[in-house]
């Protein structure tokens, strides 16, 4: 590791930091999306969670294990010297990412990435953000070879509230990812403006 000498007399800028989560099923393109806009190669961070809050759908073979590791990869976008946006991508193979509640705490909003060939993989993420009233948009990742469903079909299949934006994107394309993120922020503003009325059921 290389550290430059600190420059005496200069006060470092203390940026305002914000975060957006990127969730969705296994291999749907979350890390790709983060990498497409991040100024750093996506980094990985981990936390240990006790089993206390772990769902009990699978008790066999876990008796001896008291902790589980939850990992997230994240990227950074410095919008201005004093304004930094972090993107946190949940790992799809990890069934327990949602136990890491504090990750979502204070999040500006979220992107739920969906693959039309296996839409059901993103149900858990949609449920999670709906329950916590975290503004989210659904990004339909357009893999080559997948059918292009209209956004409305996806909305119906996911039983989304009419106010939730559904956008087509390509997680590899910086431009489309930028637009998905702008949609998240605009949606968060709209939700805030609506006085945080909970989504109707």
């Amino acid at each position, binding site marked *: *590791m290389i*550290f*430059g000498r*600190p420059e005496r007399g200069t006060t*470092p*800028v*203390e*940026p*305002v*930091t*914000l*975060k957006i989560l990127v969730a969705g099923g296994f291999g749907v393109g979350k890390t790709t999306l983060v990498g497409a*806009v991040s100024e750093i190669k996506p*980094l*990985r*961070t*981990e*936390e*240990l969670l006790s089993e206390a809050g772990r769902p009990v759908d699978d008790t066999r073979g876990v008796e*001896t*294990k*008291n*902790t589980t*590791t939850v990992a*997230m990869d*994240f990227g*950074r*976008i410095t*919008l*201005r010297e004093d*304004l*930094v*946006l*972090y993107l*946190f991508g949940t790992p799809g193979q990890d069934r327990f990412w949602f136990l890491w509640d*504090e*990750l979502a*705490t*204070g999040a*500006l909003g979220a992107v739920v990435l969906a693959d039309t060939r296996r839409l059901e993989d993103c149900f858990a993420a949609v449920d999670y953000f709906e329950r916590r009233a975290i503004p989210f948009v659904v990004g339909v990742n357009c893999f080559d070879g997948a059918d292009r469903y209209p956004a409305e079909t996806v909305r119906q299949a996911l039983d989304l509230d009419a106010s939730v934006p559904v956008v087509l994107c390509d997680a590899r394309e*910086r431009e489309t990812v*930028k637009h998905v*993120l*702008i949609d998240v*922020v*605009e949606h*968060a*503003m709209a939700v*805030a403006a609506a006085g945080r009325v909970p989504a109707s059921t």
Partner: protein
Amino acid sequence: MSADGQESAHFFDADAGPVVRPYAMTRGRTTSPAQHRLDLIAVVVAESRAHDPGADQTLSPEHVDIVALCRDTPQSVAELAAELDLPIGVVRVLIGDLVTAELVHVTRPVPPAELPDESILRDVIDGLRAL
């Protein structure tokens, strides 16, 4: 660090080893009084008096690393954890020690359950458009 020979089997258990062992660095502490449950995007800023943390004998190498990383550029908790390859919880405790020692301070991100000012959100949108 126990004196008897049995700890290796216990500590280096395949399941627990790489994940639990880092907490030895915090002497088993998983919380710290000064940490206020640091958010992943809370930013750690080195105090100006922290220019030679290595001189402080009570600090571990990991404490010194954190101060060194934050000295040039303030760093988020998540970045520090990734850079040091330590679990977030461990890094939180270490940062709490450094806050108590007044070697760093931590800026709070926007409080949970509160959206930032609309003007900040506008700035975010403009910033993203300009990328």
